[in-house]
């Protein structure tokens, strides 16, 4: 159904971006003007402009959220089969037979994403007001944050892959700007650039995938492609290739092996940004895209397996790195990478609905964890090293308890949201037609690691004795109200979030699976194998055991005063160092990709080819001309004897010619 509602969802954040952006751009002029005409002091101006930006920044997102709810309500009111709102804004790229419009679409899946993005987005905007209080770039910060929401909404509302790509690159830009927000720190600016470039590698795959799909089906419309792929009689090579290329894009955006390297570095940005962009929303864009194109992936079995394998591998790989990190945000970053791996695993074993489910619950508990971490960092005056924390429970109780709840959720303790979604993914990894024991085993091991590193983090941060400088400890304080209440709200959602999709097997009484029903017309989970179907209660038990096991080990190592952790680290030796150094992947990339490209360009292409070969041959031909001229020059140096000689020789030659002609 056509509607004019959808542009409002997009319009508000864009408006916020413009207003805040202009204020940030003309900050100095405004300041001078206000000082001169209104008599405001510098401080006055700073506070009022910050208040203005905060109101605009938060306000537009809330408005967008309300518009999203309006759309959601309208969807509910529609007949089940046709729950989709569309709006074509204007023709974007038309060329010959190619017709690509700037068209939006709001269906069941988009609705969920819009609500998560604007809902969690609103909370994090509110939190940011407190967190960024007093920062010089306050207006700029909110401008970027609004820009991000605009791009993310374009991504989830895009009707065709090209509009989706606008958002896809747009969130990359916002992420680049926000990671490097404190740009005077070279390290942070570099992290921003790294994120953008790594994402670009993924985008390269994405655009090729889109172009290939266009060449195959003549359309970039998401529904159109899904339908065509479903009905395709094409050799599956193309579909697999196209699906894999799109997945390369997803790997970049959602930080999967081998393109995950940017996400841990992205923690250089302000913590609310890490929560919003690098945990709750943007990094799930890849999952969203794969779920959106699920019919294509179902038609491309090889690509599906690759998705599942990459997902499982990333889950365990990142989880092991998370075991030994000491930076509070880095632990959470690797945890995010690992959880995203679960979502792809779900997609890969043919359970896109579960992927979306986990995406939603993860958004709640990971946002809560990150904001909790932000609260800790805020309270500790910028300290991020967990080995220098401890005992914060007494100083910041709200942060501690909300963090604890979210930890329980991510570790998979029943009946919290994380348990429900993760357990289902593990079950599907085994019991789905596309699943296998190996996938399940890897995922379960990763779950054990998750539970362990999360409790390790919790113990080291909040429990035990304080290990920081006592001056620092004295100044530790609970965060302001805007931050506290956001934490409480997110903790609440982490507890109850699972309710939207409780599987039938998990509870003895009947409880509707809202999510599966809601998304049912768009996508479906793959069928289960017969053997798997009966084993669900065993899997639930195993999940619970794994979660407790992780807690137990963490308690044994960090709960009491023991040097068990240090001892184990010493014992593990080189493996410990390998994991601690993140498997030296960054170093490998630098050594085998980055440096060779630079050296090739610098020495061979620029110095040798450009300067020596091309310019050399140009200059060389000039020199040859000069040489020839010099020879010609010698013939006329004004020496009469030489001129006589030439004349005589000339005469001789001429007479010889004439003579022979006559004789003939």
């Amino acid at each position, binding site marked *: 159904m056509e509607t004019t509602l959808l542009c409002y969802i997009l319009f508000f954040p864009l408006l916020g971006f413009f207003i805040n952006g202009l204020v940030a*751009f003309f*900050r*100095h002029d405004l300041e001078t003007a206000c000082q001169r005409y209104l008599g405001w002091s510098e401080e006055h101006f700073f506070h009022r402009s910050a208040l203005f930006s905060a109101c605009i920044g938060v306000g537009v997102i809330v408005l967008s959220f309300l518009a999203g709810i309006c759309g959601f309500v309208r969807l509910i009111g529609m007949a089940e089969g046709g729950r989709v709102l569309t709006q074509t804004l*204007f*023709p*974007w*790229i*038309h*060329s*010959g*037979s*190619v017709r690509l419009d700037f068209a939006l679409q709001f269906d069941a899946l988009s609705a969920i994403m819009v609500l998560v993005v604007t809902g969690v987005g609103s909370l994090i905007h509110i939190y940011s007001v407190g967190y960024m209080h007093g920062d010089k770039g306050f207006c700029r910060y909110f401008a970027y944050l609004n820009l991000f929401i605009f791009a993310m909404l374009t991504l989830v509302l895009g009707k065709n892959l*090209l509009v989706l*790509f*606008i958002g*896809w*690159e*747009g969130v990359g*830009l916002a992420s*680049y700007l926000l990671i*490097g927000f404190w*740009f*005077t*720190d*070279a390290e942070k*600016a*570099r992290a*921003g*650039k790294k994120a*953008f*470039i790594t994402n*670009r*590698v993924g*985008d*390269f795959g994405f*655009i*090729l995938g889109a*172009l*290939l799909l*266009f*060449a195959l089906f003549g359309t970039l419309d998401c529904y159109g492609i899904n339908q065509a792929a479903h009905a395709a009689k094409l050799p599956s090579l193309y579909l697999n290739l196209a699906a894999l290329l799109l997945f390369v894009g997803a790997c970049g955006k959602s930080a999967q092996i081998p393109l995950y390297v940017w996400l841990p570095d992205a923690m250089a940005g302000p913590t609310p940004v890490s929560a919003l962009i690098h945990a709750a929303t943007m990094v799930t864009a890849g999952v969203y895209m794969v779920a959106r194109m699920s019919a294509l992936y179902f038609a491309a079995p090889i690509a599906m397996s690759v998705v599942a394998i990459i997902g499982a591998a990333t889950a365990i790989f990142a989880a092991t790195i998370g075991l030994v990190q000491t930076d509070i945000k880095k632990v959470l970053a690797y945890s995010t990478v690992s959880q995203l791996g679960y979502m792809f695993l779900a997609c890969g074993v043919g359970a896109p609905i579960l992927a979306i489910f986990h995406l939603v619950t993860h958004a709640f508990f990971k946002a809560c964890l990150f904001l909790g971490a932000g609260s800790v960092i805020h309270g500790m005056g910028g300290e991020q090293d967990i080995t220098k924390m401890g005992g914060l429970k007494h100083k910041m109780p709200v942060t501690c308890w909300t963090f604890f709840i979210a930890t329980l959720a991510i570790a998979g303790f029943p009946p919290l949201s994380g348990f429900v979604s993760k357990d289902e993914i593990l079950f599907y990894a085994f019991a789905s037609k596309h699943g296998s024991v190996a996938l399940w085993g890897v995922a379960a091991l990763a779950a054990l690691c998750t539970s362990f590193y999360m409790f390790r983090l919790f113990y080291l941060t909040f429990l035990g004795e304080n290990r920081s400088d006592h001056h620092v400890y004295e100044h530790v304080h609970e965060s302001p109200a805007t931050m506290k209440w956001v934490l409480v709200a997110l903790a609440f959602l982490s507890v109850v979030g699972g309710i939207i999709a409780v599987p039938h097997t998990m509870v003895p009484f009947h409880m509707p699976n809202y999510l599966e029903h809601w998304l049912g017309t768009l996508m479906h989970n793959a069928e289960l194998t017969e053997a798997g179907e009966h084993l669900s209660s065993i899997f639930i038990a195993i999940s619970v055991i794994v979660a407790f096991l992780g807690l137990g080990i963490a308690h044994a190592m960090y709960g009491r005063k023991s040097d068990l952790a240090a001892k184990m680290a010493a014992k593990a030796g080189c493996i410990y160092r390998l994991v601690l150094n993140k498997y030296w992947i960054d170093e490998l990339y630098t050594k085998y990709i980055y440096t060779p*490209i*630079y050296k*090739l*360009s*610098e020495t061979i*292409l*620029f110095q040798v080819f*450009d300067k020596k*070969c*091309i*310019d050399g041959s*140009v200059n060389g031909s000039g020199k040859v001309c000069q040489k020839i001229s010099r020879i010609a020059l010698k013939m006329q140096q004004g020496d009469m004897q030489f001129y006589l000689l030439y004349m005589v020789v000339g005469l001789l030659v001429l007479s010889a010619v004439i003579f022979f002609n006559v004789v003939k």
Partner: protein
Amino acid sequence: MKESLLTITIFAPLLFAILVAIVPRGQRKLIEWGSLVFSAVVFGLAITLFLSFDAHKASPFQFNQSFAWLPQLGISFSVGLDGVSLLLFTLTTLLVPLVVLASWTQISKLIKEYYVLLFVLETAMLGTFAVTNLVVFFIFWEMMLIPMFFLIGIWGSEQRIFATIKFVLFTAAGSFMMLAAIIYVYLAHHTQFGVWSASFTDLYRLQLPANVQLYLFLAFALAFAIKVPMFPFHTWLPDAHVQAPTAGSVILAGVLLKMGTYGFIRLAMPLFPQALYVCMPYLIMLAVVAIIYGAFVSYVQSDIKKLVAYSSISHMGYVMLGLLMLNQQGVEGAVLQMVNHGISTGGLFLLVGALYQRYHTREIAAYSGMAHSIPKFATVFVIITLSSVGLPLTNGFVGEFLVLLGAFQRAAALYHVEKCLSFFITPVLAASGMIFSALYMLWLVERVFFGKPAEEAAAHAHGEHGGYDLTVAEMIYFAPIVVFIFWIGVYPMYFLNKAALSVAAFVALFNK
């Protein structure tokens, strides 16, 4: 009046050049303001043309006007615009007022001569885009060289003489071959049809044997390839760009390079279609090489201007690739990319010029953390950078996407005939340019604008000249650039529609 509007627009700058020449030397303000107002008037005239251009009219050229010049030889001064030249024509008139404004503060010696040459150059450029007669085309083509030679040679940086001679020699080397080919084509038309004519539309009808076509095509292509510049004829470009004054660099990148691609689309390709098919694989290869080579080499530059110059080679590679795809998407993408490159790279050169004016160095290493001291400047720089790396909703994306789409369409079409995946290598390699462009541009931004604010650069900025943010004049000349970046990016149809029919006619030549 209306019939002569195009002719008036072409010669108006020349008229003003004469007016400037008779203004007394001391009247600096008068010359500068006059130049600005007048170049804006020329832009206004071009806008009038742009608006009254009928995008749905099938005839090849509009605003036609012809004056007999050498009637016995069939050489007439005839002008006309089609969709493609219309866009480039308007772009040229847009860039001139911008560079005039930029020159106000950056040019302080021989002001009168400077503006005279600038306006002579404008007439030459407008003429080259608008004439429809081969002989007159060549006259305007060569006429561009002279003012540019002096602009670089007099107002350039330290090694300006070397650079300007290199520039002129490279270009002239190509032109002489083209002149020979022009004479041959002109004579061949007489032998074939019995009348003397050098008008484009007449010459398109020429039927030449394949081997003759090949030689003629190579002669034309060499001249145009040097102008584009295509790999490996590009080495004049970095030197010319680096040494030229800001206005020279902007005009060079924004307009003169387009002359090469415009020559391909207007002359070399339609005149010699058979030869084009023979050379196509090599030209495509060179275009792809240019995309990647330009990006790699610009990645390692230590001079900001040189980096931007090499990036031009990469961008122009996309234009050539799009043209050679000979389908609607590819050629439309190429045409749009010509305009985009003029705006974005022109904008980058304006920025570099303004930065140089503040800190007197183009060495990247001398800068660091400039976003701290000149935030507005940095914002504009980042916006134009994003356009240069082709972020969606900026102009660069639309052009690059259409070129890639065209390349993919062609690969898919060829694949249907011969089942060979290697056709896809071209679009894949071309698309990899989007990674590398981000690599060198963002690294540049990172080194210049981010990081610890540099004291070294601050030291370079002496007294009143250093360290100020965008001035009002600068905001005025960057505003149109930013506006066009987003306008073309968000709603490209306004511009694509103008060119669509002309491109379709061009493509139809090859799909008979």
